[in-house]
Each structure stands twice: as C-alpha cells, then as structure tokens.
C-alpha cells in the first residue's frame, strides 16, 4: 500500500455507506464501483475492503445476506441498516467540515509581518 492509499484509507467507511445507501452491493461490485466512479483514483484493495465491511457489520451499520448466482458462485450482498444511514450523515458532516478546515489551512498565507527572517 502506498502513501496515497494511507491518506485515502479513512474514507472507505464513508464511501461504502454512501453506495449502500443507494442499493445493496456485493464486495467485488463495491470495489469496482468505487474504482470506476473515481476514475481509478480511489482503488480500495479487497484486503482492506472486507475487514472494513466486517467492522460495519459488527457495529450494526450494515447487514449481509447470501444469494446463489449460477451453480457454483454464492455472492454476499451488503445492506445498509437505519443506524448505518445515521452514521452516514454524521460521516458526511465530518467529511465536509474536515475538507473545509484543510482547505482553509492550505489557503493560509502568512502576512509579511509574520515572516521571520534569519
């Protein structure tokens, strides 16, 4: 995992809950949708995605159910619960305030008087 991925790791919960709020997804579909919708900028490896999904299930934000597809494949679909929808709105608020705060810091330029010359 590179440094960029570390920076983006915190957004997995938000992205997963947002997508599940639209419809039920299975694991691989979630990972592919995030990759496609972000023009491959966000590529969440399945090694990170599944543990994140297990944590969301343990917290009661999402649930899972199995669906037989074809003869051999069983897909596990994930479904958002009411508590997950509440969690999503908290995460969106948190995300927006964080982005605004980070942007504010990035826009900050010290006035001439604040620069200390050696």
């Amino acid at each position, binding site marked *: *995992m590179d440094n960029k991925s570390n920076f983006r790791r915190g957004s997995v919960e938000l992205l997963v809950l947002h997508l599940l709020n639209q419809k039920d997804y299975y694991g691989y579909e979630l990972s592919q949708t995030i990759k496609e919708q972000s023009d491959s900028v966000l590529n969440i490896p399945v090694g990170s995605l599944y543990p994140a999904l297990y944590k969301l299930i343990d917290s009661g934000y999402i649930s899972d159910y199995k669906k037989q597809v074809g003869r051999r494949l069983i897909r596990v679909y994930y479904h958002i619960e009411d508590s997950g929808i509440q969690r999503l709105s908290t995460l969106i608020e948190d995300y927006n305030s964080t982005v605004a705060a980070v942007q504010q810091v990035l826009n900050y330029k010290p006035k001439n008087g604040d620069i200390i010359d050696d």
Partner: protein
Amino acid sequence: MISNEQIICSYIKEIKHHLPIYKSEEKKFINDLQNAIMDFSNETKEFTYNELINHFGSPKDLVANYLLEADAEHLSREIRYSHRIKLISIFSIGAIIVSLAIAIMFQYLFYYHAHTSYISREITIIEEDNNK
C-alpha cells in the same frame, strides 16, 4: 497451459501462507476473496497469475492490507493464543526430552551396575565322617 482454477488456487494458497493466523474470521475473508476472484474470472475469462496480482495485489500486500484493517482486538487475542500454544508445545517437548534423558540415564546406571557386579559365592564342603 495453466487453467484459471489452478491460478486462483495457487494465489489463495500463497495468501493463506502469509496469514499469521487462520481462524474463523480469516476463513470468512478467504471465502469472500475467492468469490471476488470468481467474479473477476467471470468478467475476464482468461488471465495469468500476474494479471491476478495486478488486479488484487500481491498476496503479501493483500495480507498486509487485511492486517492493517482487521479488528485489532481479534488479532491481538489470536496472536496471544497462538503464542501461548507455541510456549506450551515447546515446554511439553522439553519435558519429554528431559524425561527420556533421565530414563535413559537410569537404564544405563542399572546396566553398568549389573555389568560390573559379580555374584559372590561361598563354598561349603560337608565332609562325611566315614569312621562312624
């Protein structure tokens, strides 16, 4: 030519090899991962081992990602448990070796004692008195 199933099998085997613990959570993860690879296989039809690595990451990276995101309490509990099992195994093997060494030593001492000892005997000559 290697079939997709053989490629998936060796990829999963490699991942299992890198997992420090293999309990129910890890079994579930491997199962979900296998399903994801099956979905990829249905989309791609034919692929090589390197293409699988390009898509899902190397087994080592995949396990590293899993450990990074997995429940810390579960990992710590299972690693502690396996460490305890390892210690108990080492102690048991050590105890067996020491017991065997003591048993062999006693056997040797008995053998040595038997080998160096001799049967003491006493000869009593009873003479018959012919004059009577």
